[in-house]
């Protein structure tokens, strides 16, 4: 073993202890019953339990809605930030990113308090607000990055060929910023499927998401079922990022 490659040993150990082992444990627990015998009951229980399935459907729905809202609100923001005529300062970019410096839990708690003070009923509306608020920087930043790096001559060439500003935007700018949008979608969609803190605080647990059930199962020591649910979620996120990742590989990734 060469000297240099020995530098990777600590990281290797870290990966094994904190990533690979927990994954193996999750898989083991998911396919065991309480006394340690192999079983498929945990997995089949999920697919036959109406409550779990509807929570899962709701989680996906909320995550999709959140992602869509983030694109609709985040894309124009990123476009304005990257447009040199509208924004020349790095400070405005920083202001958009700055909320990420503060712990998401704290922001969520504060948001919940604000809603309480203002007398809003906590429900799906407040849940989506909190999610968009928490995750929109993850959408803005990769899109901003691709837009900012985009060669201005593409837009000029399109104009030169007769495209109005509106046509330039839809036929050139948006297609060319697709890698940024894909990065943003992955970074917003994946964590929202598994989130539980936001729904807990911003709906007072009225709305339960998939992450909430996993957390409740683990908290009440139903480790095996919890592990099975976590595994199912992992596979779904893995699949979605695999599909998204392929798109990204085609055009250079937009993140960072």
């Amino acid at each position, binding site marked *: 073993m060469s000297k240099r490659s020995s530098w990777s040993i600590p990281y290797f150990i870290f990966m094994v202890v904190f990533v690979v082992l927990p994954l193996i444990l999750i898989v083991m627990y998911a396919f065991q019953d309480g006394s340690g015998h192999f079983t498929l009951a945990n997995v089949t229980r999920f697919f036959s339990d109406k409550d779990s399935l509807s929570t899962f459907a709701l989680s996906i729905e909320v995550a999709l809605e959140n992602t869509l809202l983030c694109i609709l609100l985040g894309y124009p923001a990123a476009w304005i930030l990257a447009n040199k005529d509208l924004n020349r300062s790095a400070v405005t970019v920083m202001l958009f990113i700055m909320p990420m410096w503060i712990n998401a839990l704290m922001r969520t708690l504060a948001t919940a308090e604000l809603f309480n003070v203002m007398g809003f009923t906590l429900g799906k509306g407040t849940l989506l607000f909190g999610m968009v608020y928490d995750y929109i920087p993850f959408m803005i930043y990769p899109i901003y990055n691709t837009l900012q790096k985009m060669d201005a*001559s593409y837009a000029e060439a399109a*104009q030169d060929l*007769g495209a109005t500003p509106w046509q330039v935007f839809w036929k050139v700018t948006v297609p060319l910023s697709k890698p940024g949008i894909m990065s943003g979608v992955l970074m917003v969609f994946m964590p929202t499927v598994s989130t539980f803190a936001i729904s807990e605080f911003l709906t007072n647990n009225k709305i339960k998401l998939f992450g909430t059930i996993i957390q409740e199962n683990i908290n009440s020591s139903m480790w095996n079922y919890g592990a099975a649910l976590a595994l199912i979620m992992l596979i779904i996120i893995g699949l979605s990022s695999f599909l998204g990742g392929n798109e990204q590989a085609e055009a250079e990734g937009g993140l960072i």
Partner: protein
Amino acid sequence: MKQDYIIDIQHLSKSFGGVKVLDDVSFYVRRGEFVTLLGPSGCGKTTLLRQIAGFIAPDEGQILLEGRDISGIPPYQRPLNTVFQRYALFPHLDVYDNIAFGLKLQKVPEKEIEKRVKKMLKLVSMTDYEDRSVESLSGGQQQRVAIARALVNYPKVLLLDEPLAALDLKMRKDMQLEIKEIHREMGITFIYVTHDQEEALTLSDTIVVLNEGRIQQIGTPTDIYNEPCNSFVADFIGESTILNGTMIRDRRVEFMGHGFDCVDEGFGENVPVDVVVRPEDVYIMNRLEGAQFSGTVKSCIFKGVHYEMFVETDTGYELMVQDYNAFEPGSQVGLLIRPDDIQVMRKERTCNTIEGIMADETHVEMLGATFECLPQEGLAAGDKVRATVNFKDVELLDHQEDGTLAGEVHFLIYKGNHYHLTVLTDDGDRLWVDTNDIWDKGDLVGINIAPAGIKLEKCDE
């Protein structure tokens, strides 16, 4: 015939952040003509092209297309198309869709689009490349697609912004011929921007030479090459030796310490002039009889077709000579220049003329600094004066802080036995300097003027 001008540019000016990029530029382009805007980088040629395309609005002046002012029309409504320097092909579209982009926006029927795209692909020798992604193409192929994409819309004028700059030499030569062929075949007016003088001479019907935002000369390639109107053009186009001379009388000029017959008239008698001699126009021979002057060969380099030699003349000037025969360094040669190969140009200036104000009896404020001068009679502090300083009286120093003024070498030409430099001071003023020292463009220099070198006269308001 005014109507035959497809593009008529009138008094165009443009500044960026206080710097004048274009200064009162006017010229016209005839229908079907191949016009090249030629100049070194930063001369304003690309700004000019982008104004015609509509990406930059002029500060002053008008751009007329077929007699109509198009200054206020956005680029997407101008019947012009551009070939961009770095092609700007859309990476998310294949070759076919790139070329069809403009036609699809115009809602041209699909069948017509297909016909025209195929025709264009054939024109640029890219048939069968329709489905290729543009990123899989070589630089030359991308350039062809970019030309096809612009031409497929049948623009009234095709604008080309240094389209060959990114290609290697061999490819560039091939593409030059193809562009000329395409121009001939399509009959569309071309406006071409380049810094490559050889490219301009090869391609153009008319060349517009630009420097520092101003038009230096407009003419056919042969006009520009054979009769440059000032030392900038002479130096920029082709190889040349530029020398100080004196026009003795009509058809007689003196330079390098010898008198020559020439064909120029109307300069007056005993007028200082610049003389341009192209290296291929100097006849070089082994014998001295029949020669106008003699010299010693200093160096001889084989350049492929010809030999390039530097010859020191009997009067101490260095002259570049090109000939098909080689002459050994050290050998004595006879030299001859025929009358119609001597190009005489009026001098733009014979000394520096600077406005200033007297600070006291022995100091004058000019160029943003205070210079010592000889005691002046009849001039009091506060008087406005005009100072004249000979080129050779301006002294350049290695270190900027050693000079009364700091500046940068902006432009230089070798005049056979000395260098003639344009120095830009930190305040943006220009000084012209004759020196025997070797400086490079961009060198930072200190500037001094000896008190005896400053001649002052009171200037009336």
